[in-house]
């Protein structure tokens, strides 16, 4: 069981490069401009060719067909044997490991570690030499692909950054005062739609990137304020103002006003009519909840013109 989990863990952590070797073909990374030699050329000619092209090995081709591979190692052996003018045919390796152009890089890498050769000729399925592949070309091919992916991700990240989270926005723009205002109308004398403004405001603030704990406090306080507008007043508005330092939510109604604000603030005190109490409201806890949830609360009321409740919430509290 433990072993199985371990293996699965390893499988999960397949790296990007590991993934890429299963996607890229030999043909995509090979060098297709290949310097070749003929078998009748001498080892001496090969030496010059290698020097001029800065290569350490090359395919030997006769009449368009691959007949062998010759490398610097063969050249050193020829020099050692004082046989520098021998034809390549006598010194080349004829047992050649090849790769096909449509093979995946993963097979190619396996071949590199299996045989230890530095380069492999690449053939088309018609057995024609179409390129050559070295460890260098594999690395280069992978890097190129990584670079493409990286640029793609960078472009995507830039798009994501454009999403205006509030903090970023406030950092980026400058004015003497900046704020977002959300306004919701609340119908009085009906609890049917009550809670809608609070939940819509909560959604809006969520989109602006307000953190969940603060969101919850604002949600509860606004909900209670909205219930109060719906239960006791002729209707009113809920207005939220989002600023750099915090959020202000106001509930303003058109009357009838609270005769005794101090008393209204006491837990359990309620003037709720029966229809409100029947719905489970009117227990004299709304304003208490609001006070508990907000960082600052201010309640001003005049009879009969109306009530103005202000709640403030700070980002750090």
């Amino acid at each position: 069981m433990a072993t199985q989990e371990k293996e699965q863990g390893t499988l999960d952590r397949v790296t990007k490069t590991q993934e890429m070797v299963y996607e890229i073909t030999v043909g995509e990374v090979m060098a297709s401009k290949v310097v070749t030699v003929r078998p009748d050329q001498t080892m001496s000619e090969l030496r010059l060719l290698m020097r001029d092209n800065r290569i350490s090995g090359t395919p030997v081709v006769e009449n368009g067909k691959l007949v062998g591979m010759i490398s610097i190692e063969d050249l050193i052996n020829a020099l050692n044997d004082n046989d520098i003018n021998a034809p390549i045919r006598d010194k080349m390796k004829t047992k050649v490991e090849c790769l096909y152009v449509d093979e995946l890089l993963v097979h190619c890498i396996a071949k590199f570690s299996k045989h230890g050769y530095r380069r492999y000729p690449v053939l088309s399925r018609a057995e024609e030499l179409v390129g050559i592949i070295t460890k260098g070309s594999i690395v280069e091919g992978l890097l190129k692909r990584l670079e493409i992916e990286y640029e793609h991700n960078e472009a995507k990240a830039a798009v994501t950054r454009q999403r205006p989270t509030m903090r970023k926005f406030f950092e980026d723009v400058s004015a003497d005062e900046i704020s977002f205002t959300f306004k919701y109308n609340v119908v009085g004398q009906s609890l049917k739609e009550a809670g809608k403004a609070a939940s819509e405001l909560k959604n809006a603030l969520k989109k602006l990137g307000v953190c969940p704990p603060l969101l919850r406090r604002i949600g509860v306080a606004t909900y209670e304020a909205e219930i109060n507008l719906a239960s006791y007043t002729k209707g009113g508005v809920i207005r939220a103002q989002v600023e750099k330092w915090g959020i202000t939510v106001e509930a303003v109604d058109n009357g009838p006003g609270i005769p005794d604000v101090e008393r209204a603030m006491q837990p359990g005190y309620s003037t709720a009519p029966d229809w409100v109490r029947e719905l489970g409201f009117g227990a004299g806890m709304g304003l208490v909840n609001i006070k508990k949830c907000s960082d600052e609360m201010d309640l001003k009321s005049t009879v009969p013109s109306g009530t103005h409740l202000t709640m403030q919430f700070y980002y750090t509290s």
Partner: protein
Amino acid sequence: MKLNDIVKEFGLEVKAGSRHLENEVTGGYVSDLLSDVMAHAEDGVLWVTLHIHQNIVAVASHKGLSGIVLVQGRAPEKDTVAKAEEENIPIMVTDLSAFELVGRLYKAGIRGA
């Protein structure tokens, strides 16, 4: 405990939000005062109440409750069911009284938040 387990164990009748019975129930709360629930219920608790009007859904949604159980076989109002479906709040009904249901929930391991 998952809501689904409670539904099965106590034979609750699911009236809304049947696609959300995988909700994890982290505790229980019983109250018929909505402000009380607003003030004291915590995330993930199962709320036991006798109210059937749509405001219970708004409260449950605001507080992130795992579900609502209506006691004494009370059927939720039509608007309540519609709203619950919209807000993804499961509503269930039991024939038991609040006292009986809460007692049994407690015995099954559900605790007050």
